């Protein structure tokens, strides 16, 4: 008892109460003896704890995720945090990191009380709290070193070779934590294997400056035993330096090995807190509650054995089962578990089973899928519970068939009753239900259909203990009704419910366990079996040249079109010819660069052409008549772009619609300023575009300058942050970067390039027309695509975009030289864009396989 008080001194009532409950329960007797504390375990008793949470409570709708939780971590201490799926560990840690705001409770960092209402990710970072999240939070498109920069940007400063600092830092950190890691710090994270990414993520957090507490959420889920050992050794060296850790893991053996203290959570409450020396793995399991081995075994024993002659439903063969040396046949009425380290191919098999099947995976009959990732793969958030369930009945019906509320209700009621889901809640929105009940609704959806196979993908994730029990009963019932259940779980203990377990490693099934062979140690043991095949053949190496080819494509096509042009008209190759052909392309280059920055954030600006047209009008009218007003108007235009970025970000509305609406506003303003084409270019502006650098005309020099300016922005720390947002905005936000600020910056950069484009239009045309910019919108998108940028964001290439824009400008000129009417320009540009995108899609499709 005293252990609880001594380590959590300031929260006696609750911790005491839960300890009582524990003692009243199963741990009475032997536990009392064990829990008498060695008082000396908490080091540095006199310095204030690194963090202290007291009475933390948090609800998500009807779900009570945390209730009256206390947590104290002393300097140099390792706190093990354990609990089943859905026990509330992740919520508690997210509160500690400032991601979620606690509904009640107090929070102190380093002895300083902090108002929970003000606590956010930036404050947590400032307080030295870093978290390695379970969902990996690296940006795939950035290199390992650049990801290190995102974690601790301070060292970059404004120096030109800032990458060098992070390259060295990344290498040093990886060497320190994982000797012989074999990771290149210049490799894009997307090219690394899952285990390597986890290593990068851990190393990144531990070198963060001023870090005092590192939270590791399932850090070893994808690491082998050797890497896990290296990590724990490293943690020991760090605690000696006074750094504290919170170590969250399902692997209780590791927790017992590394932690000084352990906090056990169940159903959102802390149920046990004590020195680790007092706890054994068995005690922890007991305290966590949830499924116990004996209960699960009992349930399986209560199920009738699978009949030998049960119809075969799934046959697995080929490379997938090569390590086993024989095909696998899964039969109706069976519960088959898919085990292994996370990401070893279990999910992949589930999805192949759900699809049409292939040579290695054959399935008869239909299959339905129940995912534990309810938000992303399960619920339809706008619908009621009933509609969510009833969708399962639509399979195989004609599209124009009529749906009947009454028939749906009857069918759903039957399924819900089997699942102990209250039919009175059918009309509530699905999101008003707790995680466990949402999951039941999803299972009910599978039950109202008639699929012969039900695939479960980690279905008990984030589900409370009681709902889990219901759930296991249902799985047994589904199997008893003659369906095949294939069940992927991340909690090894759940496999004790299965008739058979297939253990995966590196994408292959390496072991088949049946009946009494199914034990947790056997599963863990088997998951480290090497399948004996090099799972990554030439894949990584082969991607290098192919990618370089893609990078070179824009320049190659520019050269090709240029050669064609030179062939049609030899004058092209003279400086005069170049000026004539490429000079006017400067506006297009600038608009394309503006579009590129927006595309880098995985959005598209449909108003950029119209905006350039408006700048054209403003600079040919206002800027001539009253320069001050003209400049102010243009500055206001750039601000308006920032405002567009802010609107899109704050209100979470699609950029396309906002920028389309903005396009009409720009055109409207342009018409109002100047109803018919006209105006003139200010003399200074004309002069700015008509000088020569030696032989080279200004326009060509300026095109180069624009490309280099965009390149400089992209390679700068700011550019890295912008690309990070384009790739993984949630992770950036978790890392303390403000999405609003960078959305505004991104759009203002685009606005500046678009202003430059409009000015160049005025200088070159020496007049203005509000419609002059309109065609640029499509061509800018085409240039960006031709330049090798990904429309999904995060991958931009300024020089490629310049080449793409010049290519498109030359294509127009080439058509003219060949005597094709300019009427066809739009069609040719549209076709080119589509052809590029289709080629890209085909190339992408070939790559993953």
């Amino acid at each position: 008892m005293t252990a609880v008080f001594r380590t959590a001194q300031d929260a006696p009532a609750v911790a005491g109460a839960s300890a009582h409950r524990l003692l009243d329960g199963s741990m009475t007797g032997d536990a009392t003896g064990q829990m008498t504390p060695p008082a000396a375990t908490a080091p540095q008793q006199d310095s204030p704890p690194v963090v202290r949470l007291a009475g933390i409570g948090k609800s998500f709708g009807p779900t009570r995720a945390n209730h009256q939780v206390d947590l104290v971590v002393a300097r140099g201490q390792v706190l093990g945090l354990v609990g089943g799926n859905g026990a509330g560990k992740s919520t508690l840690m997210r509160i500690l990191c400032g991601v979620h705001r606690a509904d009640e409770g107090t929070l102190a960092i380093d002895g300083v009380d902090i108002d929970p209402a003000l606590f956010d990710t930036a404050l947590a970072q400032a307080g030295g709290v870093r978290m390695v999240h379970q969902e990996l939070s690296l940006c795939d498109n950035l290199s390992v070193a650049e990801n290190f920069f995102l974690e601790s940007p301070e060292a970059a400063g404004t120096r030109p070779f800032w990458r060098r600092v992070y390259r060295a830092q990344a290498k040093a950190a990886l060497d320190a934590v994982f000797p012989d890691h074999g990771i290149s710090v210049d490799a894009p994270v997307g090219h690394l294997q899952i285990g390597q990414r986890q290593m990068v993520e851990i190393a990144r957090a531990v070198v963060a400056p001023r870090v005092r507490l590192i939270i590791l959420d399932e850090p070893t889920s994808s690491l082998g035993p050797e890497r896990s050992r290296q990590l724990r050794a490293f943690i020991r060296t760090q605690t000696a330096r006074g750094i504290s850790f919170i170590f969250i893991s399902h692997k209780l053996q590791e927790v017992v090995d590394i932690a000084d203290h352990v906090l056990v959570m169940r159903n959102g409450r802390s149920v046990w807190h004590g020195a680790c020396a007092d706890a054994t793995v068995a005690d922890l399991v007991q305290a966590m509650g949830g499924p116990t081995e004996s209960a699960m075994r009992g349930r399986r024993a209560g199920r009738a054995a699978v009949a030998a002659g049960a119809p075969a439903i799934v046959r697995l063969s080929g490379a997938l089962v090569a390590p086993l040396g024989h095909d696998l046949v899964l039969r109706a009425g069976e519960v088959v578990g898919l085990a292994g380290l996370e990401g070893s191919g279990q999910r992949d098999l589930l999805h192949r089973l759900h699809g049409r099947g292939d040579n290695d995976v054959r399935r008869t009959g239909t299959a339905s899928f129940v995912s534990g990732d309810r938000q992303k793969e399960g619920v339809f958030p706008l619908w009621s519970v009933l509609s969510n369930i009833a969708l399962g009945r639509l399979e195989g019906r004609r599209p124009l068939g009529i749906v009947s509320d009454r028939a749906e209700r009857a069918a759903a009621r039957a399924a819900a009753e089997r699942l102990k889901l209250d039919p009175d809640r059918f009309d509530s929105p699905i999101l008003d239900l707790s995680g466990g009940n949402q999951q039941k609704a999803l299972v009910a959806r599978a039950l109202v259909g008639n699929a012969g196979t039900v695939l479960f993908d980690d279905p008990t994730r984030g589900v409370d203990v009681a709902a889990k029990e219901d759930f296991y009963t249902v799985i047994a019932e589904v199997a008893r009704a003659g369906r095949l259940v294939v069940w992927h779980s991340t909690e090894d203990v759940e496999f004790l419910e299965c008739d058979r377990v297939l253990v995966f490693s590196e994408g292959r099934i390496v072991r088949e366990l049946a009946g009494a062979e199914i034990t947790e140690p056997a599963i863990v043991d088997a998951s480290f079996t090497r399948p004996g095949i090099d799972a990554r053949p030439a894949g990584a190496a082969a991607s290098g040249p192919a990618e370089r080819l893609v990078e070179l494509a824009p320049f190659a096509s520019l050269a090709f079109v240029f050669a064609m042009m030179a062939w049609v008209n030899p004058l092209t190759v003279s400086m005069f010819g170049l000026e004539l052909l490429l000079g006017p392309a400067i506006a297009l280059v600038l608009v394309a660069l503006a579009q590129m920055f927006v595309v880098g954030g995985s959005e598209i600006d449909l108003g950029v052409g119209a905006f350039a047209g408006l700048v054209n009008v403003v600079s040919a009218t206002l800027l001539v008549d009253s320069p001050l007003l003209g400049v102010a108007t243009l500055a206001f235009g750039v601000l308006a772009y920032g405002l567009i970025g802010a609107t899109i970000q704050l209100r979470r509305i699609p950029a396309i619609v906002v920028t389309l609406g903005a396009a009409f506003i720009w055109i409207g303003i342009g018409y109002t300023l100047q109803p018919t084409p006209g105006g003139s270019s200010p003399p200074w502006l004309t002069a700015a575009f008509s000088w020569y650098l030696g032989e080279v005309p200004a326009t060509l020099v300026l095109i180069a300058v624009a490309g280099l300016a965009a390149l400089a922005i992209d390679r700068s720390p700011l550019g890295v942050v912008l690309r990070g947002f384009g790739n993984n905005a949630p992770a950036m936000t978790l890392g303390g970067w403000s999405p609003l600020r960078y959305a505004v910056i991104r759009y203002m950069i685009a606005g500046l390039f678009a202003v430059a484009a409009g000015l160049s239009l005025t200088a070159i045309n020496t007049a203005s027309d509000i419609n002059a910019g309109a065609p640029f919108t499509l061509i800018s998108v085409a240039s960006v695509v031709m330049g090798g940028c990904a429309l999904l964001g995060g991958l931009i290439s300024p020089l490629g975009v310049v080449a793409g824009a010049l290519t498109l400008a030359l294509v127009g000129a080439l058509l003219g030289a060949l005597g094709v009417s300019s009427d066809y320009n739009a069609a040719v540009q549209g076709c080119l864009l589509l052809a590029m995108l289709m080629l890209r899609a085909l190339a992408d499709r070939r790559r993953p396989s």
Partner: protein
Amino acid sequence: MTGKALSLNPTAWLERNRWVWAALGVLVLWAILSVTTGRFTLHSLSGVAVSASFLVIVALGQTLVVTTGRGNIDLSIASVMTLSAYASIVVTAGADAGLPLALLTVLGIGLVTGLVNALLVIVFRIPAIIATLATGYILATGTLVANRWAAGFGVSPLLKTLAAGRVEGVPVMLVIALLAVLAVGFLLQRTVYGRRLSAVGQNERAAALAGVNTGRIVACAFLASSTLAALAGMLLGAYVGGAFLEMGQPYLLQSLGAVVLGGSLIFGGSSTALGTLFGSLLLVLIVTTMQIAGLPPGTQDIVQGFVVIGVLALAGGRARGRRGAARAPIPAAGKVAQG
């Protein structure tokens, strides 16, 4: 269904029937116009209704595309409308005899464009905006060519009756538009397709895992959108008595505006045909108001742009909490599976 919904609290009912706001807007604006101008009568409202009818038909197609979610929008409708108007005028050459062939041509334009859009979006995974923007450009070239062919402005009399005629004072066009609203409304609310469409729009991944053939659902929406745009273009050509370049242009933003004003969610999954009807009426009424007030055309563009952005900015936050999760990028699990 309505009875049950009414029995719940009024805010929940309003949340589910967001079209009421647009309907309210129409009534208020009409009342204001009647009072201030003194000459705004039921008859003049029916004039507004006729102009709105063309928009309604286009916007219903846009509604279906928007419902498919992921920010899908059909930007090719403007060119489809213009090209169809030209095609029907060239083919009919002012005679009813050519009408069947013209109808076939116009339907052909709609179906082929829709098929190409669907192919690009579904098979080649090109974002809908880009795909439809590009097909729109390609069709724009078609209108340039057609513009040189189209000699006269002959409109078939039957088509003219459909587009501009009245029966017992009721515009035929309005009846056509209302029938279309009824059909699309039924499709969305009562059929298997409507359910699946809503499911795909809310959570495409979950819909696919629940056994919905998402590709086919999305393809049908694109087909319907361009076909409706093509028919609207043909009727509009007959109404204005000819075809001209850019005649479809205003319908691009207006069709989106009507969908947004009608309370359909721009991220998909929840739309009503009734909302699109009232959204179209409201938008046309706003434009009419500006014309009555004598505002220059430039200002009308500005106001329409602000209306669309403003309504979205106001509505965006409402569905935010719920959409947040679905908008997050593909989970790490997807990447894990390949590793």
